[in-house]
Each structure stands twice: as C-alpha cells, then as structure tokens.
C-alpha cells in the first residue's frame, strides 16, 4: 500500500510501486484532468507538480511520489482562480484543450520561480509542452498576463 498526498488529501493506493503516477491519478484516484499524450515524456500533457517540480507523470513511478506532495490541475487552485487559469480564460487560449492542463502546470512552476519571465524564459520553460493546435502565441501572452496580474 502506498500513501500519497494528492491535492492536499491523503490517498492509500494499492498498486505496483512501478505503476506510472499518471495511471494512478487517472484510473485509481479518478483525477482525469491530467492527460496521456505520448507515454514517453515527450509531449508534456501529463505534467503534475511533485514537491513543486513539474514532473512528467507518464514516466514517474508512483513509488517516487510516496511521502511527497502531488498537485494536479484540479488542485492548482481551490476555485479555478489561479492567475494562469484566469489568463487562459481571458485570452481564450485553448482550442481542443488536450495539452492545456500540462501547459498550465508547467507555466505555474515557471511563474513560481520567475515572477517576471522574458520571452526567452518562457521558451526555456515551456519548450517541452507541445500543442498540436498551435496555441503557442496565446500561451505566451497568457503567461505574461498572469505574471502582470500577480504583481498587483
């Protein structure tokens, strides 16, 4: 039995320690906001926070998360009012939406560590999150908007 802290709630998980965290989150805990895109850490759709770091849950074993804090897109804010979530709505960033949970989770770590990122900082942080619909320009604008809003 593995004990996980997910979005500030404790869960006891009966699973193989080598099971990818993504499967645990989606299939066992029922948090389906985090998506499966490639399964090999190459698309970023599966990004969640593990002790504040943007890990790829499709390749992260659930045993690595034991005793640590896991935050999914559902837990990023209590009432979906994280500055990034608001900016995403304000600028209508999403098209199909499949990659966007991972995009937001990566952007959240960027803004936590760099409150005023340049375009280059955004490239360096977000280059691992791909979007088949091509919403990159609005993602960049939304990050800048959220950074500005957080300063107020």
């Amino acid at each position, binding site marked *: 039995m593995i004990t996980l802290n997910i979005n500030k709630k404790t869960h006891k998980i009966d699973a193989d320690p080598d099971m990818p965290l993504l499967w645990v989150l989606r299939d066992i805990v029922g948090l389906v906001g985090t998506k499966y895109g490639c399964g090999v*850490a*190459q698309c970023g759709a599966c*990004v969640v926070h593990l002790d504040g770091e943007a890990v790829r849950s499709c390749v992260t074993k659930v045993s690595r998360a034991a005793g640590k804090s896991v935050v999914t897109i559902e837990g990023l804010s209590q009432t979906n009012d994280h500055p990034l979530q608001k900016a995403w709505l304000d600028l209508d960033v999403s098209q199909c939406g499949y990659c966007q949970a991972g995009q937001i989770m990566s*952007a959240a770590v960027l803004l936590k*560590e760099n409150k005023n990122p340049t375009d280059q900082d955004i490239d*360096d*942080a*977000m*280059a*691992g999150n791909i979007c088949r619909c091509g919403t990159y320009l609005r993602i960049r604008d939304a990050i800048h908007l959220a950074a500005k809003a957080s300063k107020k």
Partner: protein
Amino acid sequence: MKQDLNSPKGFSRKIRTIAVLTVLFSLVIFMGFGIEHETKTTVVNIKAAEKDSVASTKAFMQVYKVLMSPRCMNCHPSGDIPLQGDDSHLHAMFPKRGVEGKGVTAMKCMNCHQPKNVPGLNTPPGDPNWHLPPANMKMVFQGRTPAQLAKQLVNPKTNGNKTMEQLIAHADDGLVKAGWNPGEGRTLPPLSHAEFKKEWIQWIKTGAFAPKDK
C-alpha cells in the same frame, strides 16, 4: 697588488660580495618554492619512480576514446543545451543547463529523467542525480583535443575541484557508470567500464601526462 680587505676600498668590496651572494642565494630559494608550487597544481602524490610519459599518454588515448563517445560527451557539451543520441544532436526540446546544471524552472533534468531508466525505446535514461556540470565550471568535452582534455581533467580549477585521488574515484561515480547502462537503442562506450577504469587509473598513476597535439 693584493687588496687589503680591511682598507676602506677593500671593505666596500667585501660588502658588495656579501650582497651579491645574498641575492643569488635568495633567488635560488625563491625559485625552489616556485617549482614546488607548479608541481603541486599538476601532479600530486605520484612518486617520481612511477612516472612514465609514454605509458601515461598511451593510456589517455584510450580514456579519450571513451570520454568523447556520446554516452559521456552528450552531458559535457560546449553549449548550454545537452546533446542526445548516438549522433549527439541537440537534446529535443532544448532543455537548458541552468546555474547548477540541473535545468531551469519547468524543464529541470529530473522532471523527465527518473532515478532509473524508463523502459522502452526513445524514453529517458535514468540516474538518481541526472545533471550537467554547473554553469561556472562547464567541464566541456565536446570539441576538445586530447591535450586540451587531459590538461582540463588534471586541473582542480577546471575538473570540479577534484584532487588526483578524487579523480581516480570519479571513475566509479554513479552518473559516470550510468553511461554503461544507457537504456534501449543507445550504443555503449568503446571500452567496458572495467577496461576504462584500468586505463583511467593507469593514466593518472603514471603521471597524468597530456599527449602532444598533432
């Protein structure tokens, strides 16, 4: 006519002689310290009897083959993006070195690279401490000639502050050994780890000589 050393002229000659001898003696002492200092920064604790420049450079050329293979060189790039694959192309998604060599913000090395290899082709290889050298001491291998690399490796100012003893121990570092367990689809270095370690120690213990560049 024999000079009377007790006469005024003879006395000043005496003083001049003593002064010259003192200066010469001091120069010899200072030069001695200088040579000793130079020796300490390059080779430590290797007895003169063990030094063998021919054996040392021969061993280093084997070491060089390994260090310049993709499994080692890919994480010792000349730029701030690691290399990837047997063709050492720039790592997909362009992760950046960062100050500590651990990546930046949402693209830290261990966000994707796990403590162990992820199974399957085209998945991230793993190690509990996946990282690049830090920005203030990049320990570049890419593009280095044998002479340049050898000199870089023995100098604590460019080798991660390692003594010769630590350099020997570094052959058994976890991330170094991960090069011989690279995951599916990646070729191994040209020597086995045991062979590499033998040549590494041989190079160091016979004097850590740098081969001459052609």
